[in-house]
């Protein structure tokens, strides 16, 4: 399966080669079930239990999500390093998802429905993470797709509380809380910041592409 080469950083901040693919395959879902879920289950059974505030995506069923996102407007992405799944993302291209940021209001965007790094890559679970830059690599995939579709890099998403700092660090603007769930915040990236991210990498450093 062809993909885009990306660079992650390992726990010692040494560059590591990885791949970003623009589909989520059965192999990826099997990898998720076999490798991510047991780690998450152990955390749920751990001392802080199911209410662990670090496990805000613990109920995410990627197999069901992929099954429910099979139209032309849906795209899946993965990041794979050394043959193992490190991150997944599902996006919707346009389809009524419009921007709210001044300067790009009402323009179409690529909307990130779900984005998750493997639990060993999440600093709130494992510090230092096994790999840095998985989330950024996925976001760059969404930006690339936005540009291909003529949306000039515009992307948006609803963020879980534990990820808000990550999206702010990327230069995304937090605009509002979700009307139905006040814990979720809507973030949007401007065309200008998207171009900067592609050209210069993460503001303040971090893994590129």
């Amino acid at each position, binding site marked *: 399966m062809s993909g885009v080469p990306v660079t992650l950083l390992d726990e010692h901040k040494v560059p590591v080669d990885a791949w970003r693919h623009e589909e989520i395959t059965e192999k990826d879902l099997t990898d998720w079930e076999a490798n991510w879920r047991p780690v998450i289950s152990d955390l749920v059974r751990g001392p802080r239990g199911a209410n662990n505030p670090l496990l805000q995506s613990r109920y995410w069923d990627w197999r069901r999500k992929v099954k429910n996102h099979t*139209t*032309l*407007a849906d795209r899946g992405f993965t990041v794979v390093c050394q043959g193992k799944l490190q991150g997944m993302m599902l996006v919707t*291209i*346009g*389809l*009524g998802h419009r921007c709210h940021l001044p300067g790009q209001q009402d*323009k*179409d965007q690529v909307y990130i429905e779900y984005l998750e790094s493997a639990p060993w890559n999440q600093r709130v679970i494992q510090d230092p993470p096994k790999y840095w830059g998985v989330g950024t690599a996925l976001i760059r995939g969404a930006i690339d797709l936005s540009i291909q*579709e*003529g949306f*000039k890099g515009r992307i948006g998403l609803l963020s879980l509380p534990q990820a808000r700092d990550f999206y702010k660090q990327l230069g995304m603007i937090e605009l509002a809380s979700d009307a139905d769930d006040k814990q979720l915040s809507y973030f949007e990236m401007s065309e200008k910041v998207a171009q900067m991210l592609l050209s210069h990498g993460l503001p303040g450093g971090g893994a590129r592409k």
Partner: protein
Amino acid sequence: MTLNLTDAEMAVLEALCEKKELSKTTLIRQALRLYQVVELRLDKGDKLFFEDDKTKDKAEVLMI
């Protein structure tokens, strides 16, 4: 693939492209995606409505 559009259809296509700052190909892709999603929902038995943001009145979009 060659697309044969009337003058009126072409005018709408060009106006939408200008409004949304999209190429014709991209816009038609978007239209196709939207059509597919609408069809899938209708096939499930769902109905398509527009809602007036101020009054919250709903008007069904009849799909025949």
